[in-house]
């Protein structure tokens, strides 16, 4: 039986691609740590971040998280499990959907409204400044009406 060179090349390429993919797949889902999760979830009884809580309930919650980490659960899976136990309020940062989305949208909308209000204010202020200037086109520091009349008279004397 003769080996086909094309098939061998394909097999080698397939092995190489697998070898290059596997570490990447592991890198995409790093193992979460208790410290990391403590910064992202709340102690429902204490009303503080879990990392700041030492209450008995917080100790049980930390033990629960550690157990799920040991079972190889991802961060999102652990958060889902915590939400199933304690409800959405256990998350320090609300989910970006439903009513919780307002937690992210309200500051953005408030910033945009403030920017628009500032822009309108600046435009009005500049217009008001233009209206307050004396009529006749005199600018501060420029020639007055008397200066202009004297200039006209001087030029008339030097009729070229």
């Amino acid at each position, binding site marked *: 039986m003769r080996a086909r060179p094309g098939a061998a090349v394909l097999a080698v390429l397939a092995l190489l691609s697998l070898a290059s993919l596997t570490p990447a797949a592991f890198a995409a889902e790093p193992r979460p740590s208790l410290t990391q999760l403590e910064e992202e979830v709340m102690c429902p009884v204490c009303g503080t971040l879990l990392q700041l809580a030492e*209450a008995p309930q917080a100790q049980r919650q930390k033990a629960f998280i550690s157990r799920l980490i040991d079972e190889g659960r991802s961060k999102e899976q652990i958060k889902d499990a915590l939400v199933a136990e304690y*409800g959405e309020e256990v998350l320090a940062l609300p989910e970006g959907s439903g009513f919780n989305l307002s937690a992210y949208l309200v500051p953005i909308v408030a910033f945009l409204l403030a920017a628009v209000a500032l822009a309108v204010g600046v435009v009005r202020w500049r217009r008001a400044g233009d209206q307050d200037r004396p009529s006749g086109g005199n600018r501060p520091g420029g020639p007055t009406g008397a200066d202009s009349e004297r200039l006209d008279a001087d030029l008339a004397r030097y009729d070229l």
Partner: protein
Amino acid sequence: MLAVVGLLVFGLVSKGSSGIALGDPAPEPVLPRLEGGGTGSLADYRGRWVLVNFWASWCIPCREEAPALERFQRQHGGPKFTVLGIDSRDLTGDGRAFVEEYGLTYPQLRDGDGAAARDYGTTGVPENFLVDPAGKVRLLVRGPITEEQLRETVAPLLPGGSS
């Protein structure tokens, strides 16, 4: 500006509930059962006296109180009275282990996010509310209820009125 005022008002209103007083209708939220699946509510026991007991497995006074409640349930539990446990802000597994450890036979509901505890205006666990057959709160004990309180304060209110 309007949005800021609106948020402040919402915050005040949402935190304005200071709980319930004697004679108030007892809240009847539908909650998952701690064991066995499905849901349950205080409303399921309308027509009975119910001692609603908020507890959690991590709460030390709850551990001191549980045996007294179980004894009281064994003495008085039936068609006219029951203790109803509500495991609040607790892990399901821990709550089930607690029930097993103390051999609790009265019904148990789960209040994982503490919403039911907020409805009752509890400030911690344990807290006990005696609800009459019409669904009104007749007795309120903040903190652990003792065997003596059960015998001298709760039992006389129950049909038969004896300890």
